[in-house]
């Protein structure tokens, strides 16, 4: 779950906002919207899922472990390797690359995504 306070803060909303649904944000629900956002041909334009991009950016910068948890949750939701690029970005943010490598040893889907990410970096 992504704490409701993080979502509110990322979107510039007060902590006690009533705009957001009640409770924390389930990772699967978040990743469904984030994957849809990654599929937009021009993310510079406003799309209904732009908020998901903002939240993932915040997680990568300030909560990389939670960003990885989200990506792991997203693996079950897509097979088009859209998450390869965010995974590559996350892996370059710091010490999280050690955990990514450890997770990949027991997670074939993550291992395949890493291969996709590495291929895109070449």
């Amino acid at each position, binding site marked *: 779950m992504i704490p409701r306070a993080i979502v509110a803060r990322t979107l510039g909303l007060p902590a006690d906002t009533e705009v957001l649904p009640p409770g924390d944000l389930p990772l699967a629900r978040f990743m469904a919207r984030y994957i849809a956002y990654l599929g937009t041909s021009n993310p510079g334009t406003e799309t209904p899922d732009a908020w998901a991009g903002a939240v993932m950016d915040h997680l990568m910068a300030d909560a990389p472990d939670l960003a990885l948890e989200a990506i792991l949750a997203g693996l079950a939701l897509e097979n088009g390797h859209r998450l390869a*690029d965010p995974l590559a970005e996350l892996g370059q943010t710091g010490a999280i690359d050690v955990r990514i490598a450890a997770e990949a040893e027991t997670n074939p889907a993550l291992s395949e995504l890493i291969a996709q990410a590495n291929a895109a970096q070449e």
Partner: protein
Amino acid sequence: MTLRNRVLPDGTIHAIPARGTLTGNRGILHVADREMGSALWKHRAWICCTLDWQGRRRQVMTGRKWTELFFLDEAVALAAGHRPCGYCRRAAFDRWKAAWEKAHGRWPGVHAVDALLHAARAYPGARRLRTYRARADDLPNGAIFRRDGYYLVQNGQARQVHPDRYDRADALPDGQVDVLTNPVTVAVLEAGYQPLLHQTAK
């Protein structure tokens, strides 16, 4: 068919028939021959290159090499987050490096520079590019800002940027604007780097 490979100053990529004066790349962005995918970048080495290098010819947006992107000129490429290529634009790269050292201190190596540029230009998780607010009259020559369009700062004036040309110079707007050229690159421009400009801005 007009391919979607023209980069605007805000870093977005569009299908525009006008020809650019520089090319560049951010990795393999096409998903099939002559068909762009949704990614705006695949790596951090965003470079801008000469159109004509050693007589080589490429079929654009084919194969699994890099995707050829195009820019009106270097000011637009810098605004979109790119830097001069160290291979095909060596003289420009060396001038960039000298201005970098004047602006930021010791040259940390090209990979570190690309990482610093990436942090300054992009929201990685959101796959979007950053802007920041500043006064137009505080910006150096070669910087580009957005107000009701894109504008190049040049000698204390502003020229509107179009896909195929610049308008004639006009007064800078008062007050704050959205700056598209990232602050790391703005500092390089302030240190004296002069980007290659389209003939309509000369």
